């Protein structure tokens, strides 16, 4: 890598830290949410094993809504790295 001056180095470090924080903090919410959804779906399946197919479909549907914030933070991380 070529020698860079201090301003460029701080700029690069800020980009890397920002993208890492955006992805890392943004993954906390979906993790907690999907864990809750999975736990309650397991409870429901244990209570009513004959409803398993319907519960799985609805669980994935709720997972999709929880997961969307993770996808947004991934996009923001990419934008910080490549477009800033």
């Amino acid at each position, binding site marked *: 890598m070529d020698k860079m001056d201090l301003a460029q180095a701080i700029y690069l470090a800020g980009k890397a830290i920002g993208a890492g924080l955006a992805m890392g903090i943004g993954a906390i919410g979906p993790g907690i949410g999907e864990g809750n959804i999975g736990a309650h779906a397991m409870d429901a399946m244990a209570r009513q094993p004959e409803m398993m197919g319907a519960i*799985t479909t609805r669980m994935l549907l709720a997972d999709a809504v929880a997961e969307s914030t993770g996808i947004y933070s991934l996009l923001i991380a990419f934008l910080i790295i490549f477009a800033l």
Partner: protein
Amino acid sequence: MKGLRDFAKLNLITAFGTTVLANIAVAGFIGWLIDKYTFNNRVIFVISLFFGTISGIYNGVRELLKEAEKYEKFDKKDDNDNSGSHSS
């Protein structure tokens, strides 16, 4: 048959997020194009981004509900087939 469809259900997880993002991107691109050839002051661009967000959530929720309905119909059909053939 059933195994393949269970795999395909995993598609639902990323469906909502990507639909919303694609809607915003398309609406932003259309707004940018219109803006470029009319007033060139970014007003139409911002308005169309709002339109994109609304349309993304509307279309995403509609798509999710449709997919869930489809899979539930299939599951019910499979259950009926199984109970008919095996009589268990």
